[in-house]
């Protein structure tokens, strides 16, 4: 994770763009820096989103157990099972989709950076194959209405990536790149938004659980108040320190919200499309770079906050 954060070096990207514009590079070369930045920022966002999805059931499970303990109630395993928001299969399919988005970003990067069409073709075909499996797996989720948005948004993405792979197979790198970006905007945005909504819900459930724990920590401190003596002071001080540490976690938690990062990811895709449609003048490239940089900055901030939360809590 930390490696990913350092990959996105703003100065290096701007220098590359400036050098490219000055030298009058070909279209394919002009894409390189922003697509590379997009790819790196996507990896950070996907990693962050992955944490939310994989932690979601743990959040619900832990919250139930803490609630029962706080209220002096029995704990039942069947009740814990009922608290699971996503089944393991539903989580796995979303992680597959996230992986597909990440690899799609990688494909864009390869198209922009590589002079070896065979390598691109193999990578794109492999991705198309993976997404076909995703399409099949997603079709198993249709019984649950809450999955509808996610299910409906994956099909078009599978279709587009397959098409890009076919064009790339004909060694038409620039055409494949333009097709990937032009055809990909709407469906990719829809898929990002569907995943964003699922992750936003995961974020809210986690916020809910963390908020409840604030009260648990305050109650624990309150239980230590009133008694005299050094041993009770030690206990009170320990409870106070725990409360301080926990409130630090609570205060920094909003920084981990992936909502804006995923919106910025969708906007960056749109900027890639806008650039592909443009005459590709230096100002067009500059606009693209600005949008991608904004996405990278948000992705880095969220990634760092999640990393910090993982270390401290």
């Amino acid at each position, binding site marked *: 994770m930390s490696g990913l954060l350092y990959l996105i070096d703003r100065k290096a990207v701007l220098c590359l763009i400036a050098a490219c514009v000055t030298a009058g590079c070909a279209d394919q070369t002009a894409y390189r820096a922003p697509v590379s930045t997009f790819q790196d920022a996507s990896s950070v966002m996907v990693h962050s989103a992955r944490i939310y999805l994989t932690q979601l059931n743990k959040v619900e499970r832990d919250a139930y157990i803490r609630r029962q303990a706080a209220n002096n109630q029995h704990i039942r395993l069947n009740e814990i099972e009922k*608290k699971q928001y996503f089944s393991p299969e539903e989580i796995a399919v979303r992680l597959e989709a996230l992986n597909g988005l990440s690899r799609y970003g990688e494909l864009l990067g390869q198209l922009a950076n590589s002079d070896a069409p065979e390598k691109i073709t193999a990578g794109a075909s492999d991705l198309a194959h993976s997404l076909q499996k995703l399409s099949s797996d997603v079709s198993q989720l249709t019984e649950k*209405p*809450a999955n*509808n948005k996610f299910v409906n948004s994956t099909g078009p993405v599978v279709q587009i990536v397959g098409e890009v792979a076919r064009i790339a197979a004909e060694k038409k790198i620039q055409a494949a790149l333009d097709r990937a970006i032009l055809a990909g905007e709407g469906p990719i945005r829809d898929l990002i938004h569907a995943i964003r*909504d699922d992750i*936003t*819900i995961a974020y*809210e459930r986690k916020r809910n659980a963390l908020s409840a724990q*604030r009260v648990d920590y305050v109650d624990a401190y309150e239980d230590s108040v009133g008694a005299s003596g050094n041993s009770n002071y030690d206990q009170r001080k320990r409870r106070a320190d725990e409360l301080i540490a926990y409130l630090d976690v609570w205060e920094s938690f909003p920084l981990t919200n992936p909502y804006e990062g995923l919106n910025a990811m969708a906007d960056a895709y749109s900027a890639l499309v806008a650039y592909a449609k443009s005459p590709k003048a230096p100002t067009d490239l500059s606009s693209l770079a600005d949008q991608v940089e904004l996405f990278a900055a948000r992705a880095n901030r969220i990634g760092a906050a999640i990393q910090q939360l993982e270390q401290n809590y």
Partner: protein
Amino acid sequence: MPEQNLSKPDLIHIIGDVITKIDVARGSLPRDNPQRKELDSWRLRLDAKQQILTDAAFDEGTAIYQSVSVNIDGIAKGIKKTIEDVNKTKQTFEDLARLASAVDELLASAAKAV
């Protein structure tokens, strides 16, 4: 947070905001305080409703969805204004009951839509 066309994640966020406010209020009272016990109870109920909401699917373009979601937003804003005022406890609990009913109404519309 938009005033209109609230999405399901928006509504879950709105309910989450109320829950975090309830936590502040109940974390300011002793556990054996009657008001604290009532707040604890409302917290459990809203938490359960938020969880059920995560599993529901809505047609967000329908008039009933838009009407009820705007109502939920309005009630939630009212609760956030009164919950820390000890002189408005009665109104807060009445609004919490209204909020729970509105969420139930929304969930009923989801069941019909599916």
